[in-house]
């Protein structure tokens, strides 16, 4: 059990955004959190890294490797952010500071987390770029010189640089067109097998994750209405909202929605 939330509620002023959410993710799993815009899924993901602005009050426990993040000091939290927990955001432009090169981001990230040997940092950065299929030349180019897909690959490179235990991917394919989004998902799946890190994948369109997710949770207005194995959720949904969500999304393929072959018995 790498991450578990016990009775977590988040309020901004008197409006309750997340209502008593209990869910847990096992090590090395691809856990998908599916919910429409405004269901609070992004706020929940940011609460894990204590990235919520001040006007949000978080109750309950968020345990990462059996350590309650809410009780940690900002300094301890900073060491966790990066080494054991890292993020990829939807707005790939916004992941990078416009006037610093990709290389500078990689350098700074390692230096801040204690890797002081410049030569070794450079090698590791170049290696990270190659591992996500980006050419070495991108090391010294600025973010505006890269395409959407390339920027998202670079942010995956940064996120996995210090091989974290948990990677939170917040709607990373929403802003991309379907072909490059598809390739990003395949890259993420490949990297997960190599590093063995756990992925919390947040999206509003379950079609993006139906091939890769192990378990899926459906979220509506701050409450997790249903969660379980991919096959159970997609092929035999129980909750009315889940049925509505599955039925509303147009699909092309024949056979089971979860993509498992018909023959495989549950």
């Amino acid at each position, binding site marked *: 059990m790498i991450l578990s939330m016990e009775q977590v509620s988040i309020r901004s002023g008197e409006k309750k955004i997340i209502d008593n959410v209990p869910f847990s993710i096992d090590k090395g799993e691809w856990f998908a959190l599916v919910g*429409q*815009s405004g269901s609070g899924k992004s706020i929940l993901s940011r609460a894990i890294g204590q990235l919520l602005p001040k006007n949000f009050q978080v109750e309950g426990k968020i345990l990462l490797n059996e350590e309650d993040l809410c009780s940690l000091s900002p300094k301890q939290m900073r060491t966790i952010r990066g080494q054991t927990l890292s993020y990829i955001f939807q707005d790939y432009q916004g992941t990078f500071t416009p006037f610093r090169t990709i290389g500078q981001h990689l350098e700074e990230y390692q230096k801040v987390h204690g890797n002081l040997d410049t030569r070794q940092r450079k090698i590791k950065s170049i290696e990270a770029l190659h591992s996500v299929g980006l050419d070495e030349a991108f090391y010294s180019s600025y973010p505006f010189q890269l395409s959407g897909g390339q920027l998202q690959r670079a942010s995956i490179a940064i996120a996995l640089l210090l091989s974290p235990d948990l990677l939170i991917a917040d709607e990373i394919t929403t802003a991309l*067109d*379907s072909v490059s989004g*598809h390739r990003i998902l395949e890259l993420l799946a490949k990297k997960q097998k190599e590093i063995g890190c756990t992925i919390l994948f947040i999206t509003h369109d379950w*079609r993006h994750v139906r091939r890769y997710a192990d378990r899926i949770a459906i979220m509506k207005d701050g409450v997790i209405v249903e969660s379980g194995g991919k096959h159970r959720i997609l092929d035999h949904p129980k909750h009315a909202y889940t049925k*509505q969500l599955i039925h509303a999304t147009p699909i*092309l393929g024949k056979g089971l929605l979860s993509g498992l072959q018909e023959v495989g018995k549950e």
Partner: protein
Amino acid sequence: MSLLTVKELTKSYQSGKVAVDYLSFTLNKGECLGLVGESGCGKSTLARCLLRIEPINSGSIYFNNEPIESLNGRQLYSYRKKLQIVFQNPLAALNPKLKIKDSLVDPYLEYAKELNLSYFSFTSKAAFVKQLLEAVELPSSLADRYPHEISGGQQQRVTIARAISIEPELIVLDEPTASLDVISQRAVLTLLTELRETLNLSYLFISHDLAAVNQMCQRILVMKEGHLIDEFNRRDLFDNERHAYTKELISIY
């Protein structure tokens, strides 16, 4: 009988980038023609060329077998009466400072003299607005609200109501459901299909979501970097002589 025929349409920007390259297709009366392509493949530019908002470099556009690419000013007036567009972002397609009812009657007030509506009837502004809101399954209480006071799904229904208010022959739908949540997407698509039958409209449905297009349209065009690379009926979707790019799109959805 072909309602809209496009022959060798080419459109490039001053920067030299060719947005639409030598495109030809026909859209028949009462048909919903799908146009699938990734962002940046020129599908929105094509829509704007058809509406004569953007000038075209070469090629010709026939509407009811009359060339319209060289018309301008008053001559365009009668062509524009029969053509409407629905954009992706409903909030940007409604003037934030006008009430819903004022936006709804805007087209009718412009064409009032030359219109003879069969389905709707303009007895008074309030009655007309009420009819339009009912046609798109919206409560008539929305008439006095402002666009930012209603949900995305409702806003898009208002733009659709505005589009059908003058009973055009063709509506260009430029990614109508891309910015809506999944459930209101489904509702808007079903509404559009119903309206097509009741008002015998024809649609050019533009989207990057092949699954949604496959659900709505009888014929599908696939566009990539300004070129038309595939054209097929819905039932031939899974044939193996489909273009490689179409196959890749199918594998994703």
